[in-house]
């Protein structure tokens, strides 16, 4: 009680302080309110030189101004503006006006007229530009007022003839942001200036200043973003801008052309210097492709990126992008890709030793060679060979997007993508592997391509290897040699990098299930069985052997003839692996193994998942146990918990759900057990010995409920309330146990008070959920609340005890998706033979590699704990950059932890 009082006092005290503080500050504000503008006025009048005035204004700008006084301040500022001769001060005032009109809650229409007026008399270009900027701010603050906008646009149009680029820039920006978007409005207004915003902006595409040209294009893009349909007529203008001298103009022009090509893909444009006509989107595609070999890499990146989103382009043009005619001394030469393909189709595998197989072939007609590619020719060939890796990445991304929409293009770009696997920059390699994975359902790898792909498995970067494993999961291989090659390379990888084990197994699982017919002829070789001799039984713990088995078992799933090739120990190993690595080994229909097949085969029912059914059935059974005797209830709970835990182990997708419910049932079980303890019937002095179980149970329940609340993702408020309810029960239990075991009433006061407070806060937090909790502990407790508050602790304990016994078990509804947050440390492995040695006082770095599943916001919540042998523990917060996100709900923590310790004595 005392503690509580103290706390309350403290709370109130702090509150008081805060209020005082608030009072003070608000008072101060109120005091300054009339005087803030006045003070500024005084300051500005005092200022003798422009530099002084500027200083005052700068100081003023640092303080916030409240809404009510904005207008006053603005008036003062304007007054000084008119008087001021120095341009820099006027500039600052103009920028302050803009800043002030941004103030939330202030409607700037009152100062608009003044701002426009000042604009008319201003001579300095810089100030003009700043004023226009202010007007832009004002205009954007008043989106619902078309007449204001119209007026502002008119003002801007008037200043478009200014000789300073800054002013023209701002005018165009303003028109872009505020220009009328709907055709109807423009006609209604019939004002001369706003007649055709697009034409006005379009006129400035030929401005003499590149900055203004850029601003004009940007304004046009802004109009497009605001929903105005750009006219097709500007396409010609935009095309001319692609040859501009300045990179920012070209970059913006590329964007504009892209926008137009998306707007009018099907309209027809003529090809200059010939009578032909082509679709606009094709023409634009050609032009943007041309920009991939621009002089500035910024433009190149921009162009390469945009290419990816031009999916309406015709396939003829698309395929040209990968085309590059080679020649040597004017004779046609085949590319290495073509040669590889021919070698493959002629049945000769990568002999590569043919003399002069790249010798030039036929003569080329000199007139027919086009050295400067018109249109799309070879754009990606250039982009993928670019000097800057930014361009290469953009090109790979674009390639990916285009290939996803066109299977034939995917087939063609494969060679190029495979080549990118050998890029010198890791990010590019990674990106191209990911790209390949995305398009993998459209393609089948040739053997020579597979060879190049697999060579990357030896890469020392873990990200690359894992990306490659994922790629292999979903590739189609054409021959059995290919499968064999892949397996051999993966096993090589496994020996070189044993930590890749899980990933390789998973990869082989998919490889097997995708290519059962290709694996079938390899089985005897892989299992090293012999028709006449018995071969020694391989070691079951060898990861490489497990890898081979995973491949075979997954292939056997859809290939019923395969098990006939297995030897006896293979079946034993199957049973073992099916149990230990159930996520990798599928259920098989094995001949002569009735037991296994009958137990497993019903699980292949397609529509209704039996394990889900089982889960719900067992839960229903539990919730209906009311009529059972206590002994039966306990047994039922124990069995159900065991079943659920086992289910969680077997079915990874149900693991979260099963664990969650199992934990809840466990809590309930503990509660029941605790309440059935004999201690309640025994005389007080004997409690001491026997209370161990009850208080331990209470503690454990508390712990479990916290786990339930925080360690699962997808927990909804319905579950939270039940978890809290369980916790409340545990606390009640704790209270009762303490009351029984301690002598004297003094400490009980505080505890009772605290408990009642918790009940109170529970009621407040979950008031909406209370109707669902009929007959529960808290329901009954709240009924008795008035009595509890007034009664003594000993009575409270008695009441609690009875309500606890009488209350019903609450049904825990399951959410749709429930996953347990887990962290699995891959490295350092648990039982390492060589301990980590380091000099005391110095630091050693330990590589930590862990996968986190279903952890929300890992950057903020996950910490690494280091436990030293002397029991000292240290919590380390990893850097946010150490977390990678390989898939939804999955995170990967690869970090270094620094250990240090003083000498042990």
């Amino acid at each position, binding site marked *: 009680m005392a503690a509580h009082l103290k706390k309350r006092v403290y709370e109130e005290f702090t509150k008081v302080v805060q209020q005082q503080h608030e009072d003070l500050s608000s008072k101060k504000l109120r005091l300054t309110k009339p005087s803030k503008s006045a003070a500024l006025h005084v300051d500005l009048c005092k200022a003798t030189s422009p530099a002084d005035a500027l200083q005052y204004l700068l100081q003023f700008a640092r303080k916030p101004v409240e809404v009510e006084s904005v207008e006053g301040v603005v008036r003062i500022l304007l007054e000084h503006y008119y008087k001021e001769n120095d341009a820099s001060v006027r500039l600052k005032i103009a920028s302050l006006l803009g800043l002030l009109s941004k103030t939330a809650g202030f409607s700037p229409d009152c100062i608009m007229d003044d701002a426009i007026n000042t604009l008319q008399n201003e001579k300095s270009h810089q100030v003009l530009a700043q004023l226009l900027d202010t007007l832009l701010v004002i205009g954007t603050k008043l989106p619902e007022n078309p007449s204001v906008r119209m007026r502002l646009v008119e003002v801007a149009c008037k200043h478009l*003839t200014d*000789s300073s680029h800054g002013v023209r820039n701002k005018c165009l920006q303003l028109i872009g942001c505020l220009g009328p978007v709907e055709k109807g409005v423009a006609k209604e207004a019939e004002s001369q200036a706003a007649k055709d915003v697009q034409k006005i902006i379009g006129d400035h595409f*030929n*401005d*003499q200043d590149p900055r203004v040209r850029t601003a004009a294009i940007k304004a046009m893009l802004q109009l497009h973003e605001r929903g105005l349909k750009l006219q097709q007529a500007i396409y010609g203008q935009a095309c001319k801008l692609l040859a501009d*001298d300045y990179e920012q103009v070209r970059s913006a022009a590329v964007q504009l052309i892209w926008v137009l090509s998306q707007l009018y893909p099907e309209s027809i444009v003529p090809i200059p210097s010939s009578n032909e006509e082509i679709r606009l989107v094709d023409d634009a595609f050609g032009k943007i492709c041309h920009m991939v*070999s621009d*002089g500035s890499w910024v433009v190149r990146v921009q162009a390469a990126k945009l290419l990816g989103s031009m999916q309406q382009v015709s396939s003829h043009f698309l395929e040209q992008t990968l085309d*590059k*005619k*080679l*020649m*040597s*001394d*004017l004779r046609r*030469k085949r*590319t*290495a*890709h073509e040669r590889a393909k021919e070698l493959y189709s002629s049945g000769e595998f990568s002999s*590569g*030793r043919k*003399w002069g197989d790249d010798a030039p072939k036929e003569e080329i007609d*000199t007139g027919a*060679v086009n*050295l*400067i590619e018109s249109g799309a020719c070879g754009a990606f*060939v250039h982009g*993928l*060979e*670019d*000097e*800057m*890796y930014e361009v290469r990445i953009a090109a790979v991304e674009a390639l990916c997007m285009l290939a996803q929409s066109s299977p034939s293009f995917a087939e063609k770009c494969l060679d190029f993508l495979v*080549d*990118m696997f*050998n*890029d*010198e*920059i890791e990010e590019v390699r990674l990106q191209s592997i990911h790209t390949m994975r995305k398009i993998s359902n459209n393609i089948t790898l040739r053997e020579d391509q597979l060879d*190049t792909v697999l*060579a990357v498995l*030896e*890469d020392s970067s873990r990200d690359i290897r894992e990306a490659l494993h994922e790629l292999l999961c979903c590739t189609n291989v054409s021959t059995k040699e290919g499968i064999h090659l892949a397996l051999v390379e993966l096993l090589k990888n496994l020996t070189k990098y044993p930590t890749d084990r899980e990933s390789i197994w998973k990869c082989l699982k998919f490889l097997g299930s995708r290519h059962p017919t290709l694996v079938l002829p390899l089985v005897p070789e892989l299992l090293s069985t012999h028709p006449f001799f018995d071969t020694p039984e391989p070691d079951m713990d060898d990861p490489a052997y497990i890898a081979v088995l995973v491949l075979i078992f997954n292939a056997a799933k859809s290939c019923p003839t395969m098990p006939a090739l297995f030897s006896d120990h293979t079946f034993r190993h199957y049973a073992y692996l099916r149990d230990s690595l159930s996520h990798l080994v599928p259920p098989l229909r094995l001949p002569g193994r009735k037991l296994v097949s009958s137990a497993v085969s019903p699980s292949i029912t397609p529509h209704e998942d039996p394990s889900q059914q089982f889960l719900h059935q067992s839960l229903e059974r539990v919730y209906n146990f009311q009529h059972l005797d206590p002994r039966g209830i306990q047994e039922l709970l124990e069995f159900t918990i065991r079943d659920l835990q086992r289910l969680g182990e077997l079915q990874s997708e149900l693991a979260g759900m099963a664990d969650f419910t199992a934990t809840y049932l466990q809590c309930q079980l503990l509660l029941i057990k605790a309440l059935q303890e004999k201690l309640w019937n025994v005389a007080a002095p004997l409690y001491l010995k026997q209370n161990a179980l009850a208080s331990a149970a209470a503690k454990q329940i508390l712990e479990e409920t916290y786990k339930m609340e925080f360690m699962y993702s997808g927990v909804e408020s319905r579950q939270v309330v039940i978890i809290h309810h369980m916790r409340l029960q545990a606390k009640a239990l704790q209270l009762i146990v303490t009351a029984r075991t301690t002598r004297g009433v003094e400490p009980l006061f505080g505890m009772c008070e605290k408990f009642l407070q918790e009940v109170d806060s529970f009621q407040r937090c979950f008031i909406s959920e209370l109707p669902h909790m009929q007959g529960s502990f808290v329901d009954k407790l709240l009924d008795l609340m008035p009595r509890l508050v007034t009664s003594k602790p000993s009575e409270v304990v008695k009441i609690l005890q009875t309500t606890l016994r009488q209350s019903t078990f609450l049904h825990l509804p399951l959410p749709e998706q429930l996953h347990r947050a887990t962290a699995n440390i891959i490295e350092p492995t648990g039982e390492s033979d060589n301990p980590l040695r380091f000099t005391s006082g110095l630091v050693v770095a330990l590589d930590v590699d862990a996968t986190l599943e279903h952890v929300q916001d890992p950057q903020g919540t996950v910490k690494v704990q280091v436990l030293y042998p002397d029991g000292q523990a240290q919590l380390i917060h990893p850097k946010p950059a150490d977390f990678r996100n390989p898939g939804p709900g999955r995170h990967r923590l690869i970090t270094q932890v620094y250990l240090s310790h003083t000498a042990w004595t």
Partner: protein
Amino acid sequence: FPAVLLCPGAGQDVGRSCILVSIAGKNVMLDCGMHMGYNDDRRFPDFSYITQNGRLTDFLDCVIISHFHLDHCGALPYFSEMVGYDGPIYMTHPTKAICPILLEDYRKITVDKKGETNFFTSQMIKDCMKKVVAVHLHQTVQVDEELEIKAYYAGHVLGAAMFQIKVGCESVVYTGDYNMTPDRHLGAAWIDKCRPDLLISESTYATTIRDSKRCRERDFLKKVHETVERGGKVLIPVFALGRAQELCILLETFWERMNLKAPIYFSTGLTEKANHYYKLFITWTNQKIRKTFVQRNMFEFKHIKAFDRAFADNPGPMVVFATPGMLHAGQSLQIFRKWAGNEKNMVIMPGYCVQGTVGHKILSGQRKLEMEGRQILEVKMQVEYMSFSAHADAKGIMQLIRQAEPRNVLLVHGEAKKMEFLKQKIEQEFHVSCFMPANGETTTILTNPCIPVDISLGLLKRETAIGPLPDAKKPKLMHGTLLMKDNSFRLVSPEQALKELGLAEHQLRFTCRVHIQDPRKEHETVLRVYNHLKG
């Protein structure tokens, strides 16, 4: 103002690069190379051709060296010390650092091995290098008041540069050798839209369009790998600097990835020094090396060791980089002789070979070679050609022309027949005139120079205020006075001109006399005329 040009060295020939440019009265010599195929007087350009008898220093304003290959700088000590030239020589920092090493190496081979006399000495190389002024990329260097030069990245070898030479408003861009596709250690050539009057471009690969470099690299690695696995020896003749470093990086990373054990050797001496400079001039390399050198400098090789002559007889597989690259002399030729008889071995020629060298002979399929002393050498080893030489191919040349937008193009450093094709293409695509002079031929290009005139701001503002906003693309008519004084032109307002010249303003009044036959009195007549005019 014609820009005159003359090629004592490389016109339609790959070998000696030496070009003389006269631009607006200034004479600039571009490169000063030697020919690898000759061992007599023909190896150096004929400098007497330039001035006939006068002193070179008086005639030339400066000499520019584009990069350190001997066919671009080999004749430099001969030119500056033996013929005599004391003016400035411009080159980039890496070129200045590496050039003397190569010259010294070349001198050793010629003098010490072949015992030639009448050749430049080490001291001459040193003296010559003292005349060199180093320039940075994109740095504008004022040679004198009128002549300025500026270097652009060329990507051919470390420190290779293209030079823009500018006098007044006339300009010439000389590309030297350049490469438009980046490789394992260098970036791509780049130039801004400087719109020179003349672009002098190399055209080694005028009729070739090359496959992607990745395929080339893969092929190369595959060939080397296969030979080594068979137990054969691989000889890669290279010039000590340039391609060699690229191939080293390529093999080094491949060896590391594939965990190969066969030794890789690089002929000693030269390389260590040169590699040192490669490590040093990181800013001149490509993006990847620039980004990663903090963790590990890519030129710190782990698998590549120094070569000793005795190693050539060692059994087992090995890879050897040996100089020089065209198999015409030195270590590469020695090793080639030793290994040529075994069909398991392989020689990979990674670059261009000049006619007359052993390299050129074996590449053209000759299997029996006549060596010095009338020996006949039978070549059984495999001969592979991999185009790793970093010259721009036809597409690359076109791309550079597109970037720079010159008014005229001149092709040098190539073979006449091939240049003809490219010339035709350039004229067709860009509609600019294109030239391809032969050795010793002079080409004159007429330019249309613009004359800059200063105009006072007041006048400009006044004139532009009249009428609509000026259109940048169109000429505009304005009134003013052109003052030509001390070689400078100024456009000023008439009042200003009068004031400056100290002249009084004269007004011309045009009058004419009209006779009127009128009987009335004078003032009446006047009144009548007045009323008439008024009406």
